[in-house]
């Protein structure tokens, strides 16, 4: 007997993502799914972002890692609520994992929720978590070739944070080339060069978030 299914492989994930999305809309929580390769600086960017915005907004973080609570501990040290998901070898977060930890947050009391995905430029890009925004972090030591080499990540993100620009004088990274490559993959995406270490460029990112929260509250 042949059964025609014609269903998307990620059907179950997408259903869970819709559930999450509705919840975020109801509670007017801005949710950002932050993705990058390991070591690009996601957690450091989050630390600096929380330091700068925690006066004005209530912030929560879901941390995705294969193992350890290290990243969640760094976030908690700043006074923000952080829940760690350990994927035990899994290379990405999926929407069901997010749905499972959401009850640990009082979302109506949270303005901004970051989901720090597992460090990986491939797998996380395909999974909708129910977030409003997908943001990729790329750091300059990774090299100019990463945008064209990982198109499925950059075609699905709307913003790229180009981190560690304080290292530009020591490297051959070409910022204009990166902007140009990004345009060739996803013309709608923008790029913010910044350094989470020196705070250069951080204001533009913080304003992008502030505008996002304002839009989210007015919906």
């Amino acid at each position, binding site marked *: 007997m042949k059964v025609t299914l014609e269903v998307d492989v990620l*059907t179950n994930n997408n259903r869970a993502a819709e559930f999450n999305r509705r919840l975020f809309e109801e509670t007017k929580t801005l949710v950002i799914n932050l993705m990058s390769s390991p070591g690009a600086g996601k957690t450091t960017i989050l630390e600096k972002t929380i330091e700068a915005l925690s006066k004005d907004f209530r912030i929560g973080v879901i941390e995705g890692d294969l193992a350890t609570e290290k990243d969640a501990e760094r976030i908690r040290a700043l006074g923000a609520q952080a829940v760690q998901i350990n994927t035990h070898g*899994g290379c990405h977060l999926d929407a069901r994992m997010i749905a499972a930890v959401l009850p640990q947050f009082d979302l109506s009391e949270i303005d901004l929720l970051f989901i720090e995905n597992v460090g990986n430029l491939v797998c996380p890009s395909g999974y909708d978590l129910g977030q409003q925004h997908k943001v990729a972090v790329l750091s300059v030591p990774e090299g100019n070739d990463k945008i064209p080499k990982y198109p499925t990540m950059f075609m699905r993100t709307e913003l790229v944070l180009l981190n560690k620009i304080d290292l530009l004088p020591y490297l051959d990274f070409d910022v204009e080339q990166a902007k140009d490559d990004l345009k060739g993959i996803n013309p709608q995406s923008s790029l913010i060069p910044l350094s989470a270490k020196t705070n250069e460029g951080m204001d533009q990112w913080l304003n992008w978030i502030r505008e996002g929260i304002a839009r989210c509250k007015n919906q």
Partner: protein
Amino acid sequence: MHEMALMGEIVRLIEQDATKRNIDAVTKVELIVGALSNALPEALEMAFDAYKLQKDNRLTEDAQLIIHFERAKAFCPICEEEYEPQSRLVQCPSCMLPSGQIIAGETFRVLSYEGSSTS
């Protein structure tokens, strides 16, 4: 090895459907896998072989996996031409502008499966 997790999704979708139909032996699965879907056909085949040997699903030990590969395709509205995108996905090779729209290659679907009821 994210194809293992993806094959887990595929097996679960088939299990859900087969339960409803009382199908307890699945002998063939057909997928369509796009070039931009982040799934490698070879790795999916390896994952399928691993799932066939597990006893907690209905795949038979000699079940067949058929993968229909979908090439990436983009359309440039300026040149009104289709092209196969390379690393700069939306750059049209004729006008060189980032004007293309991806029209194929993102698909990742379970088309069908075959099975029977032994009871």
